[in-house]
């Protein structure tokens, strides 16, 4: 085997050498020469090999026997057995080791497989989780969008309602304003009317008083008596008494709403016999002012007819209540 290798090597070397010697131009010649040489060398080689085998044939080794004792043989056997056992053990150990290795490998493979499986599972779970999360997020997003949409809708609705309310309020306000304007104008008119009326009343009263004054001046004593006769006696004296008392009554300030009733006793001459408060007002100054008004009349006008005097003017009451 070695020899054939070396021969090929040599051939190759040779071919290499030839390649280097000949140029490419002579390629055809070279291939032809090589083929020729190959044939020649092959022939040579075949012939050389057959001659060499004869020459170097070695003397076969014959079996060499030696006498050995039984013990020695036993020992050799034991040794061989031990060696064989050792080999077997070794083989067994190797087998065990191999088996263990295989088991470990298997275990490792299984572990790896399990790990991969777990990883895959985990990845699947993760994926699932991620998907769930994504889905949840998407749902949440949808929900938010929905809510926002609803919110927008609600706000829009509220805005619309607010606008409606505002318009309604504005309308009401406007109406109220108009109403107030109408009221105000009415009040203004009322006040003006009142003022005009008061003015007219004042003027009328002034006119009347002037008229009365003029009439009073014009009327002679005779006429006055005649007029008095027209009135009933009681009314006439009542009017005269009222007029005298009014002139004497100085109404204290802040007396609106107060009222006091006095009982008056007169003498037939018209002089005051006594004055007594029969209904108090609760304000001493006011009661005193009425009492003083009654006392202030020096002589009350009373009828000469005794019967009428006794019936109406001997004792009578006066209520003082400022209008």
């Amino acid at each position, binding site marked *: 085997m070695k020899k054939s290798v070396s021969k090929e090597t040599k051939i190759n070397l040779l071919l290499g050498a030839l390649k280097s010697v000949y140029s490419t131009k002579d390629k055809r010649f070279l291939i032809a020469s090589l083929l020729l040489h190959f044939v020649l060398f092959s022939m040579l080689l075949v012939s050389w090999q057959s001659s060499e085998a004869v020459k170097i044939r070695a003397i076969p080794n014959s079996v060499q026997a030696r006498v050995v004792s039984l013990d020695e043989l036993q020992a050799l056997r034991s040794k061989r057995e031990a060696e064989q056992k050792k080999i077997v053990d070794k083989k067994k150990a190797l087998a065990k080791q191999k088996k263990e290795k295989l088991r470990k490998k298997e275990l490792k493979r299984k572990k790896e497989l399990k790990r991969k499986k777990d990883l895959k599972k985990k990845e699947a779970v993760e994926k699932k989780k991620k998907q769930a999360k994504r889905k949840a997020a998407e749902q949440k997003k949808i929900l938010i969008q929905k809510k926002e949409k609803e919110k927008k809708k609600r706000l829009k609705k509220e805005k619309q309602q607010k606008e409606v309310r505002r318009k309604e309020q504005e309308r009401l306000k406007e109406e109220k304003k108009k109403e107030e304007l109408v009221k*105000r104008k009415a009040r203004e008119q009322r006040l003006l009317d009142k*003022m005009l009326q008061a003015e007219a009343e004042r003027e009328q009263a002034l006119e009347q008083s002037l008229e009365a004054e003029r009439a009073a001046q014009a009327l002679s004593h005779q006429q006055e008596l005649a007029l008095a006769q027209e009135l009933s006696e009681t009314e006439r004296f009542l009017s005269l008494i009222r007029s005298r008392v009014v002139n004497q009554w100085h109404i204290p300030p802040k007396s609106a709403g107060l009222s006091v009733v006095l009982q008056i006793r007169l003498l037939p001459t018209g002089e005051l016999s006594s004055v007594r408060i029969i209904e108090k007002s609760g*304000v001493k100054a006011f009661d005193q002012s009425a009492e003083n008004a009654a006392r202030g009349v020096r002589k009350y006008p009373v009828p000469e007819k005794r019967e009428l005097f006794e019936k109406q*003017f001997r004792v009578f009451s*006066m209520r003082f*209540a400022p209008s």
Partner: protein
Amino acid sequence: MKLIIIFFSFLLCVPFAYAELMIEITEGSDSALPIAVVPFANKGGFAVPYDVSRIVANDLQRSGDFDTLPSSKMLSLPEKFSQVHFRDWRMLGQSYVLIGQLKYSDYTKKYEISYELIDVLSQQRVLGEVLSAGPKGLRKLAHKISDAVYEVITGVRGAFSTKIAYITVKQLTKNKREYKLHVSDADGKNDYVLFKSNEPMLSLSWSNDGKHLAYSSFHSGRPAIYIQHVRSGHQRKVTSFKGLNSAPMWSPDDSSLVMTLSKDGNAEIYTFNLSTNKLNRLTNHYAIDTEASWSPDGKEVVFTSDRSGKPQVYRMNIKEKKPERLTFVGNYNARPRFSSDGESLYYVHQSNGGFHIAAINMKTEEQLVLTSKTSLDESPSLSPNGRMIIYSTLRGKNSVLAVVSVDGGSKYFLPSNSGDVREPAWSPFLN
């Protein structure tokens, strides 16, 4: 049998008893109540710095509710009750006679005055007191007697012992004026200067305890509202916001001031809490809102606003903040002030080309012009008993102080010898 006859006779009399004549008196005399203040007898003939009985007579006469009899018309000058001849006083048409005596004690250096008020018609003594005071306290004592007499006859507390505050303006040079814040007795006497400045002062307002005055002044270079203690003169700046700081008015409980500020761009009404320094804006309108004053219960303010185009008086509840127009007659109604009972409102009203003090009844809405004979009347301020109104008016070239009764029946001018007199403010009761 006799008993039966008496019983039936009694029954017959009953209808006559019920038929007793009743005369209704609903009006009174337009004239003031006649009263004679007899000059108080000077026991010992010593010198008296003031004529006490004269001061009392003047007080009563100025009130418009009394008509005092001149001493020259008196038939006698009684010193005590037993010396009063009622027939004489009745002949003179007097309802009341006030008599008194004056003594001086060298030991106490005080005057002792005993006085009696006699009802001529009932011939009874209705009031009597003995009072004493030093020479400087005699005026005060006289006003005290006036208050007592006024109250016992009218039933309304007298306001003669109160004070008034006002501003006088004097032209020093062509471009320089002197403004003085005066405080005096209600009759214009006994005055002193509380504060003076060369810059304008206006809108005086007394605190309801009578201890402080609030006003608007420019003396710091810009408008500001100040509070000044009347006795000590101590001055405190309350507000000096940008723009207008004017027309302060104390709330009835003296806890806040209502005022006009233009810090937000326009003249608006605010309340200012004096304890917390917090502002509360009451009005919010592009028109000018100013000259606010409180209702007696402190729940409302009345103010001037030109939101209708012309200055008119408006009322506003502090909480609701909804203004309501009160005056409709005339083109100018301003500076409103409530009466002490809240039933009337007094303000400046323009009519017949002049400015007058007018009153409006809050219930009937009837308006009454009180000062038709003067013109350019302004700054009305009500006496604490609600019977008189002090205001400034033009007399000749200068403005002077005048007083009118709330029914317009009586009017008088307060003497002044210091140029223009403006912005009067009547104090509350001081004791």
